């Protein structure tokens, strides 16, 4: 889905906002410090607020064009908004919260069912509870479910991790990927934690001091030399999708494929992978730039299980440190030090081995096999019936 802000100006008190960007991704992250204007962007997109100037477009539909005096009311935009404080109705049970939008969706195509939402977000045990009996993570899941059931065509999530403790953040990320994959619903996610966003997507919009300052794949933003502060090792994550290949129970390692040629070993410390995982299952991985070591040769007799051959594409030096982009069939962002450049005579175009421990890969999400099949073959109910009949005979 294409979201386009064209010279959109807005003012709140003494704060001035200016958004001018376009993004086209299944998941877009909106990143910036607190108070930079991220929520204002959501308010303008969802119709909570109307800008003073400019044009907002969703695909080919013009939501706002101030010069033409054209403003589509928020409730007619079909945009789901999950607020930072989630605002679950305290007097209603979880089930009634989830079904709140039911009377208002008569005229919309219903493609997200109550049962699907409850099962995907594991809400079933919570249905009878009141919001005050839920933990932060549970509240967040119910709020996401409630918004999904209003059948939106786009889902906005404002700081979905802010009221969730660290251990549960990963869980929410996994749920978001699951929803995105299952319902094929585009999402825009606000967070001031880049590492959380990057576990979900590489397409980001950066908001600083009330302005959109960049909107692209984070790799391109960094390659172009913009926003050097983004690549601080603790914040930046290499994220990629791979396919499961095989598993060795004795070593407790799993082999996954980037493509036919590149195989890597990962361990299952996140416990997200199980023994019955099907070959070809898609897995989202993340890897910190600091966890990658560079070597000029392949080593034998080492505990490091991954030695990926690649070529140095670019070396970036700035006040944050020294980084290089290595192409191993896919691009990896590696954090190194000035000394290493000198010792290895590192230069662009050089052949190099990236050494990564199996443990350093973080399994963010394992996509359901069924989800993928449905997506790939675009199965309709009729197809399913035909297959069921065919299998019977």
């Amino acid at each position, binding site marked *: 889905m294409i979201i386009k802000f064209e010279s959109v100006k807005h003012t709140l008190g003494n704060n001035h906002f200016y958004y001018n960007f376009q993004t086209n991704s299944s998941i877009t992250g909106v990143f910036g410090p607190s108070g930079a204007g991220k929520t204002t962007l959501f308010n303008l997109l*969802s119709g*909570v607020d109307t800008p003073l100037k400019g044009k907002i477009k969703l695909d080919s539909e013009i939501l706002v064009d101030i010069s033409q005096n054209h403003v589509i009311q*928020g*409730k007619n935009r079909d945009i*789901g*908004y999950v*607020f930072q*404080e989630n*605002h*679950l*109705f*305290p*007097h209603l049970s979880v089930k009634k919260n989830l079904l*709140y*939008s039911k*009377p*208002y*969706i008569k005229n919309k195509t219903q493609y997200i069912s109550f049962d699907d939402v409850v099962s995907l977000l594991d809400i079933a045990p919570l249905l009878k509870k009141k919001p*005050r009996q839920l933990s932060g993570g549970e509240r967040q899941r119910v709020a996401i479910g*409630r*918004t999904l059931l*209003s059948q939106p065509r786009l889902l906005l999530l404002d700081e979905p991790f802010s009221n969730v403790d660290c251990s549960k953040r990963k869980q929410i990320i996994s749920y978001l990927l699951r929803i995105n994959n299952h319902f094929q619903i585009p999402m825009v996610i606000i967070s001031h934690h880049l590492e959380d966003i990057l576990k979900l997507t590489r397409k980001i919009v950066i908001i600083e001091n009330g302005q959109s300052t960049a909107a692209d794949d984070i790799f391109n933003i960094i390659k172009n030399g913009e926003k050097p502060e983004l690549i601080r090792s603790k914040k930046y994550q290499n994220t990629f999708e791979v396919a499961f290949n095989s598993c060795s129970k004795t070593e407790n390692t799993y082999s996954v494929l980037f493509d036919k040629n590149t195989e890597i070993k990962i361990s299952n410390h996140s416990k997200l992978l199980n023994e019955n995982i099907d070959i070809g299952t898609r897995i989202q991985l993340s890897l910190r730039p600091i966890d990658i070591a560079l070597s000029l040769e392949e080593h034998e007799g080492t505990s490091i299980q991954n030695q990926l051959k690649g070529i140095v594409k670019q070396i970036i030096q700035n006040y944050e440190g020294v980084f290089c982009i290595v192409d191993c069939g896919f691009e990896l962002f590696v954090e190194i030090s000035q000394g290493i450049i000198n010792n290895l005579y590192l230069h662009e175009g050089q052949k190099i081995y990236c050494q990564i421990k199996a443990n350093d890969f973080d399994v963010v999400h394992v996509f359901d096999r069924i989800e993928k099949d449905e997506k790939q073959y675009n199965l309709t109910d009729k197809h399913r019936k035909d297959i069921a009949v065919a299998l019977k005979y």
Partner: protein
Amino acid sequence: MLSSEEISVILLTLKVAVTSTLFTLPLAIWLGWILARKNFLGKFLVEGLVNIPLVAPPVVTGYLLLILLGKNGIVGSWLYETLGIKLAFNFAALIIASVVVSLPLAVRSTKSAFELVDPNYEKASSSLGASKIGTFFRVYLPLAFPGILSGAVLAFARSLGEFGATISFAGNIFGKTQTIALNVYSNMQIPGKEIQVTRLVIISLIISLLAIIASEYLNKKKKYFIR
């Protein structure tokens, strides 16, 4: 134990209290809502007018009602001449006096109940597709419900004890407009009626106490409910 005279006085009092509460409640919800959530020209005037009976001597309120709605009153004379409606010194007068006097108490309670509801729920509700009216009935009203109920109980209790405005506007006519308070007042003037007075006083105290306990209970529940 109670004489038929006492029973009819008690029944009339309860009838007035219940009826006037039924009239007060929707008015209090509407006024509480606009005073808590809306900004409009003359808001302070509306608030002032609603609250006058709380501070003015009830007899004065009754007198003003008489000037306004009495047979020769500003509005009353027109009502009587064109529609033949008489509003003073009858059951209608009892209800009107009672509503006017108990309204400020009820509005205070409904207003604070609406103020306590986080307006962000409205944002959430409208993002889920609800209209303003839908949000009012599905979010604000249920969340403010304990406060509204406690306002109703207060209005009911206030109306039970109403004396000044009633005697000025509805009179003290036995069998027609004489409530517990007026009956106690009348019997206090007559020697030998002390026992009857005491009996009604005790009954009146019990009803009032129950109403206050109910109101306090609902107030506590309100905080728990909204959290």
